[in-house]
């Protein structure tokens, strides 16, 4: 083996890597928030009684879940301008990722809502809570608890998927890799290191999600 691995060649680019990590975190957190809200509406539409909304939500979910994120991204960034809808690369990334995540969150939350028995709703209503209060305090909490593991693994998948937006030139961790690569010509080292950086991020996210689980769901249900 004649190749000399030189990870030290990447040392001068620490700033770029850190910046990439921060950008990826920002992108992920923004997308998770928007995706969760979209997902909630989708779940409500799919479990609700209005046929038009139900149909629209189902179509949206199926369309997104059965096509690749990269193609969705290309449509948003290159296709939509032809309809007069124009985004810069970073906005297009948020839009495409949120639309994508929203469909998956919608499915997960729908399963959660459907796992809550009607007796729970009746119990809430019979205590004098309004429909909205019952939903927020009784149904939603339990539904999110039921699907929390699925939801958080979806978030981790999203974190990894953000790397794809480098394809349209949005700035995040993976796009820093091609920048560093173009300067150092150390492609293998660069991409190995950047890929490993994602591992640190996913492990951190998993740990955070586990802490939130403990704080929000375990402690609360024990003290109640």
């Amino acid at each position: 083996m004649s190749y000399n691995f030189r990870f030290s060649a990447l040392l001068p680019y620490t700033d770029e890597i850190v910046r990439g990590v921060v950008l990826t975190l920002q992108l992920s957190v923004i997308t998770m928030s928007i995706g969760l809200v979209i997902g909630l509406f989708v779940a409500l539409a799919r479990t609700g009684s209005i046929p038009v909304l139900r149909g629209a939500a189902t179509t949206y979910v199926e369309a997104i879940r059965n096509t690749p994120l990269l193609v969705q991204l290309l449509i948003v960034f290159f296709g939509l301008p032809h309809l007069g809808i124009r985004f810069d690369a970073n906005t297009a990334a948020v839009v495409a990722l949120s639309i994508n995540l929203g469909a998956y969150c919608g499915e997960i939350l729908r399963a959660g809502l459907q796992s809550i028995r009607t007796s729970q709703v009746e119990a809430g209503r019979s205590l004098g809570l309004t429909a909205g209060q019952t939903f927020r305090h009784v149904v939603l909490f339990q539904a999110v608890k039921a699907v929390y593991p699925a939801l958080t693994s979806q978030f981790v998948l999203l974190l990894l998927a953000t790397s794809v937006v480098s394809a349209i030139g949005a700035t995040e961790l993976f796009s820093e890799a091609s920048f560093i690569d173009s300067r150092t010509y150390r492609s293998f080292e660069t991409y190995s290191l950047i890929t490993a950086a994602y591992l640190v991020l996913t492990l951190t996210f998993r740990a955070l999600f586990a802490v939130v689980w403990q704080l929000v769901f375990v402690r609360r249900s024990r003290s109640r």
Partner: protein
Amino acid sequence: MIREFGPNDIVYLLEAARWTVALALIAAVGGGILGVIVAVLRIVPFKPANWLAIGFINLIQGTPLLGQLFVFFFGLPLFHVVVDPWVAAALSLSIYASAFLGEIWRGSLQSVSPRQWEAGASLGLPYHQRLLHVILPQAIRIAVPPTVGFLVQLVKDTSLTALIGFVELTRESQILSNSTYAPLQVYGVAALIYFVICFALTRLSQRLERTPHAAR
């Protein structure tokens, strides 16, 4: 030179989709074989093997497939393997798939109740027959829907190989989009092709989920 988007382009896209399907199939088969090894390493009563498998699974499931593709694409030549996006894509996707399939199959195997093992034992069935006739048939039924579900994922994931220059459906779309300047139509048709493949698989997995007499 810019030309109109026409029926020919649809044919080009369909032809490119064959590579998408071929790549997904290779990754499914390669990933399936490796996945069995991963699942076995994960459950054998030998701690170092378990750790190895767990480490591998966490590494693959904790890093972006795109990163894995680039690492293989740039890494393979260092080991004097020919630089070819096709090889890098097939190898990388197989390894990626093995981590997921291995976990799906381990979970299925372990979700068959230990009482089924005991019932088999109580009839005098030796270990391998218990596994073969009692546990595996039940585990396979449990495993089929999530396995097909993962294949949908795999088909979509092949699109990322476009970014290391493998010409499959997505890469072909990018090329046609540049030459026709009709990205909406080109990507729209590409999305439709993906949809048809994935939706068919999704439906299949939903149908398989309803097989009768599955384990309770």
